[in-house]
């Protein structure tokens, strides 16, 4: 059962008709295969055109889709032997940010990323992917560990933002984010980041001050949520669609602004329609990017990363 977004209504109607036809075909004797094929083709074409011209606001909805694959799905389909590691050794373990050893096409890496959860129970446990200071401090710990043992770092970014709460402020949310960004920049090994869903502000960049930053086709990456931007500049969150357009939040926008290095195409209709293919494409692209750093010295790796950010946005 698919969860449809508003703009997918025509597709939803067609897919419902196809399902009806299928179930009636089992009882009736009439041959409906021709009609079925026609509808399926029509539906596939409609899905493709819909997804080839999504507005920034529609992409934001796709990036937040309840069925969108998250960290655990990419771990399951794209990485082998994931060994989760826990805790910041200071306060606690924040499950909004996961991390651990993993293998990517046989290569040993440190894998870190936000996890939003997929049902009520897991969403609460992962705090909807909104990291707290202990989450960012765990990421720092794991990055430093990876640096010492020569393991490249891969981060999967998917957060609406760092958690806005009293305890998070009390424990130094801002400092944790700043230090995490610094830890990315200090790594003597390559770090490759992919925005797989939402790249929400400081909570995202803290894991993405990287040698290469990629985005999934329908992911979004922005300094503030479109609703937040709209409520400040337009004085109403209802202008979120305009804000998304104006802020340039899509993968193609960010590629042309030079903020990201590449876009990983999603299966037709979004990653949620085929998480396995999405994970395949994601991991093979990360492998290609990592291979480019083979044989490079840590000095070269750090320098490339620093230049990337110094030259950007000048």
């Amino acid at each position: 059962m698919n969860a449809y977004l508003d703009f997918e209504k025509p597709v939803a109607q067609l897919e419902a008709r196809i399902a009806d036809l299928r179930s009636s075909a089992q009882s009736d004797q009439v041959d409906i295969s021709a009609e079925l094929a026609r509808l399926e083709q029509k539906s596939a074409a409609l899905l493709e055109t819909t997804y080839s011209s999504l507005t920034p606001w529609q992409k934001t909805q796709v990036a937040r889709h309840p069925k969108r694959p998250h960290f655990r799905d990419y771990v399951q389909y794209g990485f082998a032997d994931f060994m989760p590691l826990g805790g910041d050794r200071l306060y606690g373990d924040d499950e909004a940010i996961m991390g651990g050893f993993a293998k990517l096409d046989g290569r040993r890496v440190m894998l870190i990323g936000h996890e939003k959860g997929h049902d009520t129970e897991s969403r609460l446990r992962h705090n909807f992917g909104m990291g707290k200071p202990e989450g960012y401090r765990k990421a720092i710990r794991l990055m430093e560990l990876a640096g010492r043992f020569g393991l490249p770092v891969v981060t999967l970014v998917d957060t609406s933002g760092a958690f806005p709460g009293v305890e998070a402020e009390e424990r130094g949310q801002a400092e944790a984010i700043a230090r995490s960004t610094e830890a990315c920049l200090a790594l003597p090994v390559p770090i490759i980041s992919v925005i797989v869903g939402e790249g929400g502000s400081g909570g995202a960049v803290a894991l993405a001050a990287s040698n290469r930053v990629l985005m999934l086709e329908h992911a979004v990456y922005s300094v503030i949520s479109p609703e937040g931007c709209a409520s400040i500049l337009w004085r109403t969150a209802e202008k979120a669609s305009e804000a998304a357009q104006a802020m340039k939040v899509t993968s193609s926008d960010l590629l042309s602004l030079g903020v990201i290095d590449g876009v990983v195409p999603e299966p037709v209709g979004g990653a949620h329609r085929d998480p396995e293919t999405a994970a395949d494409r994601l991991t093979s692209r990360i492998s290609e990017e990592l291979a480019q750093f083979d044989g490079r010295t840590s000095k070269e790796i750090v320098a490339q990363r620093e230049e990337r950010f110094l030259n950007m946005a000048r």
Partner: protein
Amino acid sequence: MNWLTRARNALPFLGKRDTPDNLWTKCPACQEMLFTKDYEENLSVCPKCDYHGRIGADRRLALLLDEGYEVLSQPDVREDPLKFRDTKKYTERLKQARAANPHRDAFTAAAGTIDNRPAVVGVQDFGFMGGSMGMAVGEAFCKGAEEALKRRCAYVVVTAAGGARMQEGILSLMQMPKATVMTRRLKEAGLPYIVVLTDPTTGGVTASYAMLGDIHIAEPGALIGFAGQRVIQDTIREQLPDGFQRAEYLHRHGMVDMVVDRHELKGTLADLLEYLEPAEAA
């Protein structure tokens, strides 16, 4: 309260002097009517309640540096790269901000000495579009750091910002790692980097160069935090604790080394610099 309302509230301090309307200044904290001249002579600190008012870049530089300092030119950056427009064009907002401010953007740096110890001081001015961090702020921050590296001296940065400059979208967010490249270089070069947090310092500025100092000093009562108070209230739906996100609260929670009255600020910096002599590069 977002930076727009804050900017409006700050307006009484930006008006022309010596007109009858501006002879008196109402303290925003205790509402006391103060003689503007006295208030300004007291460094815009309320003598009644010790409220530390917001001051612009030029006054701040004059307050911290010895006479004869050199103001660095503000670097050129791409202007309005997103062709951003909300209810008004971004270029229009920039034009207005420039008309009301002696500087081209919200970050101004100067090189000189603090009680005869060489230092570069960078100041973020809340009066310029809420001090918001865009490409010009990020680049000016980096230029100040480069100057400190060149002179092998301390870098002191006075922060004030409602957050990132939304009109520059993702490019404003990219200033966070960019500035962090430079704070790392200062560290590697063995140079001290001191942050003075003033009212307000929030959002992406706090979550990058404002929290990466060797020493963090805060002005009394300054609002300092990552998330906005309204956002937090909407999330947790309960009352915020007393003094939440104020300088003293951050001091209590270990995020700043000291809370220092504006009158003592220069002396404190000079005392610190005596201990933080440029070391050998790492």
